[in-house]
């Protein structure tokens, strides 16, 4: 399968990428690792006429401590995340979640910024960033702005990023001593999660769900139940509240609702142990 023809331009900086997006408008699409976009282009479900390659922009692959947060350049790959000593120590949930994505070959190419900007509700890392209450930094024609992960995911494959913005940085709070868990249920190696749960217990409890609606979702009913002192089982029973899970070849919507309660319970148990 070959993508439809397109014009290829390589950006050498985030500023240049923004300028190219402004120049080409809706016809342009950013590519970094390409592991979300290229499969869609090969199926001709995406047919951008201009591909702006930001994969070589220097200085956007860092993973570093910055005060109470870990700052991650948008081009850091899943492989960089899963092997990062600072991330394993400070935000182990994110390193462990990155290790669950796809397979080694995919993790050698896919980037954190790419998976967030793609906004697929079935992806693992968006839920982890959401559970952690991360902050996303977008660069546009008027400079940089910060977007809370809670405000970032707007709809199926839709995010708060403007058509002329580039995601440049992701920041998550340090959670070195926090309890955490990432639960991923699938039937075959390397598959997407049928349902997944990212949980971090760090004074407050953050829980996010994979593949339980058109976006990654915070399980706010569970979080409230935990805050009000409910048992793990009772809190987990609220896992499907406010969700709208899909029915597909892997599972019915009803089955996903059930799975969510099971996986949230396991996640809370593991994060609290």
């Amino acid at each position, binding site marked *: 399968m070959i993508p439809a023809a397109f014009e290829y331009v390589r950006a050498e900086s985030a500023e240049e990428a923004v300028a190219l997006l402004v120049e080409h408008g809706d016809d342009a699409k950013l590519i970094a690792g390409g592991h979300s976009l290229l499969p869609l282009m*090969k199926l001709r479900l995406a047919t951008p006429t201009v591909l702006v390659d930001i994969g070589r922009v220097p200085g956007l692959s860092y993973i570093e401590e910055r005060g109470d947060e870990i700052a991650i350049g948008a081009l850091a790959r899943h492989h960089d995340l899963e092997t990062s000593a600072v991330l394993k120590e400070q935000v182990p949930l994110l390193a462990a979640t990155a290790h669950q994505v796809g397979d080694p070959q995919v993790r050698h190419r896919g980037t954190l910024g790419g998976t967030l900007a793609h906004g697929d509700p079935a992806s693992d890392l968006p839920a982890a960033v959401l559970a952690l209450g991360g902050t996303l930094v977008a660069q546009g024609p008027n400079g940089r702005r910060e977007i809370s992960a809670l405000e970032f995911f707007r709809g199926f494959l839709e995010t708060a990023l403007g058509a002329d913005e580039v995601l440049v940085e992701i920041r998550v709070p340090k959670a070195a001593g926090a309890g955490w868990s990432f639960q991923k249920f699938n039937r075959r190696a390397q598959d997407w999660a049928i349902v997944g749960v990212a949980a971090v217990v760090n004074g407050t409890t953050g829980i996010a769900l994979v593949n339980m609606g058109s976006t990654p979702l915070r399980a706010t009913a569970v979080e409230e139940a935990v805050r009000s002192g409910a048992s793990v089982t009772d809190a987990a029973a609220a896992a499907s509240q406010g969700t709208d899970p899909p029915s597909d070849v892997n599972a019915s919507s009803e089955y996903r609702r059930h799975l969510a309660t099971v996986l949230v319970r396991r996640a809370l148990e593991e994060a609290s142990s």
Partner: protein
Amino acid sequence: MVLVTVEVNGSSYQHEVEPRMLLVQYLRETLGLTGTNIGCDTSSCGACTVLLNGESVKSCTLLAVQADGAAIVTIEGLSGPDGALHPVQEAFHQHHALQCGYCTPGMVMAAVSLLAEEGELDERGVREGLEGNLCRCTGYHNIVRAVLACAGDRAPVGEVGAAGAAAS
């Protein structure tokens, strides 16, 4: 057309390519290196795995233009100048780690990358490390034996499989 310069198996190449040309097409059709197979064409099966700057990637999900400036190794580039098999190829040969052979080039390249990245590997590590490669003959046991042999794992090969069944 975009000018692409790559090093493949130690030789430099320069070609004008269409931006939409996939790396696997470039390797097979432009360079004639047909050892890299196309299997699923959807980045699931791993038959097209090559090394890009030393790391395993699926060349069906990479544009040739994205590989500009990179050093690529394909299955043809593994053996020594005298034609001697690479240790992983030799292990696949010794342990009969192939049946129809279609997945073998990708499986070998994924194993080379895995062995380079991981200091220690047990059976579970090998199975998880090769999760991006499918063998349509389901000949996984001997593939795992071969990779474990390269990893210097001293577990008796007869026990391979029991732990895998428990881990899966």
